[in-house]
């Protein structure tokens, strides 16, 4: 794929920016998008949550979602005291088997550098403000180890089915740039 792209770009047949634009349209359609179901199960099933936090790779595999790339997945839990934020400062390592295609901002240099220097500011850029008492921990992905944030379960969702809970889990909440929330329009 890269070889073909290089040849066509250098001959002017395709514009890499135009390709990115098309791919971006599908960023939520790539990969099995299983992360939300993993989180919903962890909220509903304390034993599963314990397994997920102990060994993310194995617990995700229980739901038969593959870690085909062979990287390990570590799940980090948000609490009222601690908020987790995931970044890859070197490149754009991303657990796409559970989260789909990385959003364009995740790969951008400003996000990668600011997330480390000023994580609270980055989260604020996404419209999320955390209490000053909540500490923020930044996790830097590598090719071998990827992170998935287990967001806090929204209030008012007691007794909800896993399926309904999964709708509360946004992609950003699993990166740490957002919070899980009850969908505004319940259809």
């Amino acid at each position, binding site marked *: 794929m890269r*070889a*073909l792209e*290089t*040849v066509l770009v250098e001959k002017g047949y395709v514009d890499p920016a135009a*390709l990115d634009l098309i791919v971006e349209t599908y960023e939520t*359609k790539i990969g099995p998008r299983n992360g939300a179901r993993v989180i919903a199960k962890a909220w509903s099933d304390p034993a599963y949550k314990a397994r997920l936090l102990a060994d993310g790779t194995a617990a995700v595999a229980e739901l038969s979602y593959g870690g085909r790339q062979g990287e390990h997945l570590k799940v980090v839990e948000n609490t009222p005291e601690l908020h987790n934020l995931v970044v890859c400062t070197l*490149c754009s390592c991303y657990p796409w088997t559970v989260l789909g295609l990385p959003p364009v901002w995740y790969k951008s240099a400003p996000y990668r550098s600011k997330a480390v220097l000023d994580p609270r500011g980055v989260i604020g850029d996404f419209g999320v403000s955390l209490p000053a008492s909540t500490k923020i921990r930044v996790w830097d992905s*590598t090719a071998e180890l990827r992170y998935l944030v287990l967001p806090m379960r929204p209030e008012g969702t007691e007794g909800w089915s896993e399926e309904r809970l999964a709708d509360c889990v946004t992609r950003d909440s699993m990166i740490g740039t957002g919070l899980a929330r009850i969908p505004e329009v319940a259809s």
Partner: protein
Amino acid sequence: MTAVAAALAAVPAIPCDATGPVFREPWEAQAFAMALSLHERGLFTWSEWAETLSAEIKSAQAAGDPDTGETYYAHWLAALEKMVVAKGASTPERLREMRDAWDRAARATPHGEPISLAGDPERRADGN
């Protein structure tokens, strides 16, 4: 009709959900985007594309491909390369050269760093 709808109408085997194409891996979306973009530039028509892709899938099946959908975009990429050569946009030699260069660059790049052609140890100083 949008470009995507036109592609879907001409090439109905594209894996889709209720709202459009779905991809198993990021590179599949890149391959899809490449075909859309080359079509928009007028390199081929969708009926030419459907013909090339189905020929590719048929020959893979004849060679024992299980055709469970997992290899769909591998065929898509092979068809793209054939089309690009057939339309004179590149040559098989140039494609092979570039594939080898990416391959060498990938091997020479430490884990966790972005791979680029600059990492190809045999890359010539003139950039070619």
